[in-house]
């Protein structure tokens, strides 16, 4: 089985988000870029699966749609154990563009399982995996918190709104990954870091695609009003405030 993990590159989740003076783009100065946390969990799980005897996983590749400056982050995916990476040289304006570019590659390279995070920590599109599945005409399973592979049998746990299910799915399919799938992302070993450079990182030019949505401008949230302190020995006052002032009880 060949697994493809879609990687988005996002600001570190501890970043204080700031925008340019015109408020029409992210101020990228001083930002540390990381693999989108859910994508990283997806990759971690893919690597774990490959290590299990009988998984039949022969290849783990990662794909990213972005400009050259994202390559150091892609290198990390190779350092932790992905076999190869592909970067589609394009700055996508919306999720459909990303999905369309990835679909082109999947059609050519015949992957069996595509994994991606169920959301991205930057623009929160949470759409690439599902759009990709639709473009490919594949089945898709979302909010997956457990995944195992044995030959062509894919077993997954899907967390729905009111129930969770254990599902046996067939390849090919797209799964979108949420927390629980793997514990912590891996720290690359030094050997992994040194061998990452010798693994293939292919750069592909984008196909033509028109975005259907775009961002006009951004806004930081309005500052919150001052916190009103209540004495620890007087919780009744807090309850009164909640009932009579905030109207939440």
């Amino acid at each position, binding site marked *: 089985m060949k697994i493809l993990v879609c990687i988005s590159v996002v600001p570190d989740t501890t970043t204080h988000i700031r925008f340019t003076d015109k408020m029409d783009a992210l101020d990228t100065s001083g930002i540390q870029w990381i693999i989108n946390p859910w994508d990283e969990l997806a990759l971690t799980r893919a690597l774990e699966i490959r290590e299990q005897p009988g998984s039949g996983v022969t290849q783990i590749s990662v794909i990213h749609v972005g400009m050259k400056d994202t*390559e*150091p982050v892609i*290198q*990390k995916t190779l*350092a932790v154990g992905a076999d190869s990476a592909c970067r589609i040289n394009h700055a996508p304006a919306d999720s459909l563009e990303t999905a369309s570019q990835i679909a082109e590659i999947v059609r050519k390279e015949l992957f069996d399982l595509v994994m991606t995070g169920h959301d991205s920590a930057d623009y929160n599109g949470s759409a690439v995996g599902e759009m990709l599945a639709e473009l490919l005409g594949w089945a898709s399973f979302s909010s997956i918190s457990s995944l195992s592979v044995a030959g062509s049998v894919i077993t997954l746990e899907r967390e729905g709104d009111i129930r969770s299910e254990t599902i046996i799915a067939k390849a090919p399919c797209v799964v979108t990954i949420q927390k629980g799938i793997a514990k*912590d992302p891996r*720290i*690359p*070993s*030094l*050997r992994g*870091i*040194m061998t*990452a*450079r010798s693994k293939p990182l292919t750069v592909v030019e984008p196909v033509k695609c028109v975005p259907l949505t775009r961002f006009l401008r951004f806004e930081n949230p309005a500052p919150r009003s001052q916190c009103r302190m209540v004495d620890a020995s007087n919780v009744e006052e807090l309850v009164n405030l909640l009932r009579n002032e905030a109207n939440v009880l």
Partner: protein
Amino acid sequence: MDFQLSEEQKMIQQAARDYANRELIQDVLERDANSIYPAKHVKALADLGFMGMMVNPKYDGGGMDTISYVLAMEELSKVDASVAVIVSVNNSLVCYGLEEFGTEDQKEKYLRPLARGEIIGAFLLSEPEAGSDATSQHTLAEDLGDYYLLNGTKNWITNGNSASVYIVMAQTHPELKHKGINSLIVDRNSPGITLGPHEDKMGMRSSDTHSVMFTDVKVPKENRLGPDGFGFKMAMKTLEGGRLGIAAQALGIASGAYERALKYSKERKAFGTEIFNHQSVAFKLAEMYTRIETGRLLCFHAAWLKDKGLPYGTASAMAKYHCAETAMWVTTEAVQIHGGYGYVREYHVERLMREAKLTQIYEGTSEIQKLIISRDIFSK
């Protein structure tokens, strides 16, 4: 001149930072309080490749440059200098000496498992009556033809209990003074080795420090590093690199304390504003930052010289001297910025302050570093 790190170097730095922030931080307070050896961390760091970073890959090392080593040491030390010193001793005192001066057989037998981190090593130079004055070794390695007979006591040995391999400096030809010293590879399991009690230290409490006693320990001749009488020179060459590891450790202790102080000063309010806005605190942070950056440049410079194969003994002495003094000053001021919180264990800075003190003492005191530097100045 290029002040930019390579992508690999950044990734190594990040890997060490991730490990420290994710794993070391979890139990560092408990290990410090109860002097617990970090066995699981040593194993994990070995698996990640940190125990033989600079060893040639043909001996299962990482093949990294010294800059990468400095970066890793700094990141680990920001959170846990005890773990960092275990890494430092194995890398720059044990692996370095074996790779540089060992025979092929010695490398196959000892360097390979040490570089993989399957076993760790210790470097035994200090004695009860020979600390800074390393020329006056009282431990004897009597040449008995096929083997050396080792007798004596070594002090303050980092990894004293956890090491499987000792590199021991001992006197074979007392009449030749330091030119009679040999450096021997000693299996920890050899009959006649006894350990003193675990030293109850002020800081670095998670590393195991012991005195080691040798009573009629037989060491095969083939376990001598370099030619007869090379031991002292070998020790001095090795310590040049060791100093750099400790410089980077001190740098990490300083920057760890600085980062905590900076964060605290942005959160803590006094007189109606974050204390960062008070000049007395802001200037202190500015000075910390400047001294730390100076230390970083000194470390990088020494590492760069070493990687280029140029003499770096004075550069590493300056790096160690400056970084150790900086660590002591920065950690003390970081406690001050934290006020009462700084004096309790939960906030880490008092521990960093205790750890900083040792960097002024071990692998050559600050005074010895000044001696090295001054001799170099006057010889020019």
